[in-house]
């Protein structure tokens, strides 16, 4: 087994956070696609509590939960870019907003493909509000991290591949409500370390439609 292994799923934005962090740091790793309908021995052994991807194995030792993996990568490979800054307050802000992405963006995003009618309208409103809060936090900077990728950029970037899906489901345009965020998304996608990790937005939309078929509200 390679020194650094990532157990992951092709379309997972959580797994993609880890891929971006590893790429940004220039860490060589082995990517192992997981079949979640038939979980591997290695996955079950490495993450017995949640049995979920992503899992990072470093020297055989597992780290679980995407944001914890990203922090681990930042701390184990303390080279540029430093994803979390040195200042404790800036670190706290980055963690707060990454937690916000988990609580709001992922939740609203799920409701957007899953729900219909009034629930869908509410999900759209909630998503626009959440993206607006992130737009304000970005505040005209190139990246949330300032001049280069930071913790929050890594936490949010994979979800940009889902913007088209959100827009299609909710009938709104991110660029119209959050031009700064839309520009930031383009900027991220122009980088190798991010672009190589993200799924093509059309494929994401196709995938979301199959989720809707299987799990959506009828």
């Amino acid at each position: 087994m390679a020194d650094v292994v990532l157990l992951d799923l092709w379309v997972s934005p959580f797994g993609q956070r880890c891929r971006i962090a590893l790429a940004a740091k220039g860490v060589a790793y082995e990517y192992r696609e997981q079949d979640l309908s038939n979980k591997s021995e290695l996955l079950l052994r490495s993450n017995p509590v949640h049995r979920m991807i992503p899992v990072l194995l470093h020297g055989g030792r597992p780290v679980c939960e995407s944001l914890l993996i990203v922090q681990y990568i930042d701390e184990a490979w303390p080279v540029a870019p430093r994803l979390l800054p040195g200042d404790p307050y800036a670190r706290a802000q980055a963690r707060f907003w990454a937690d916000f992405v988990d609580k709001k963006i992922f939740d609203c995003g799920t409701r957007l493909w899953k729900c219909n009618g009034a629930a869908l309208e509410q999900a759209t409103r909630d998503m626009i509000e959440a993206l607006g809060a992130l737009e304000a936090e970005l505040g005209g900077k190139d990246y949330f991290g300032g001049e280069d990728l930071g913790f929050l950029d890594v936490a949010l970037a994979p979800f940009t591949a889902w913007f088209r899906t959100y827009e299609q489901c909710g009938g709104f345009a991110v660029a119209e409500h959050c031009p700064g965020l839309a520009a930031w998304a383009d900027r991220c996608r122009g980088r190798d370390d991010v672009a190589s990790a993200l799924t093509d937005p059309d494929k994401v939309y196709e995938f979301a439609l199959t989720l809707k078929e299987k799990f959506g509200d009828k």
Partner: protein
Amino acid sequence: MSEPVKLLGSFGSPFTHRAEAALRLKGVAYEFIQEDLGNKSELLLRHNPVHKKVPLLLHGDRAVAESLVIVEYVDEAFDGPPLLPSDPLARAAARFWAQFAVDRCSRTLFKALWTPDGEARRGLVAETKENLALMEARLDGRRFFGGDQVGYLDVAASGLAWLPVLEELAGVERSMMGEEEFPALCRWRGEYTSHEAVKACLPSRDQIVAFYAGMKERLVLHARSMQK
């Protein structure tokens, strides 16, 4: 750095306690501001516009929200014994189990307590116990999750110290965290609640009862509405 430190909180809430415990453990002088959650202060709404929740730490003009984010901030911004270890893998493990303690123990336990008797409740109790067993194993003969000293994971898991009073309030006959099944956790609870620094900010039984007074119906409704 001697800017004033204020903690906006709701005394009796385990979330607020996490933030206070961190301040006490680091020996930080602070002013506790009790928030009336039914009538939130302008200070709270101005500094935590996103979630409008307590606890909220104000360090000078810097506002930090979310209890575990506050704990890490306090650990990093102030001198004193470190709450998190220095090794990256150990840090990742402490954070992982802290999330687990909050999401899968305290939260599940809360749902179990306030879900009416029946199959759903039995399932939640079983799930709580399975998860508590993992925390029991984490202690592995040590005094605290942090080893000899109280650490980040102890603070995150501190909600478990509330359990006896909450079970009494909910009219539970047999504790979910009984001594026979969870001897290490019960011993840990004793150690944690009698720790010098923690004791100073731990609500008494009466204060916890007062915090939850008149809330029973709301708690039952809240438990029902909570997602998995």
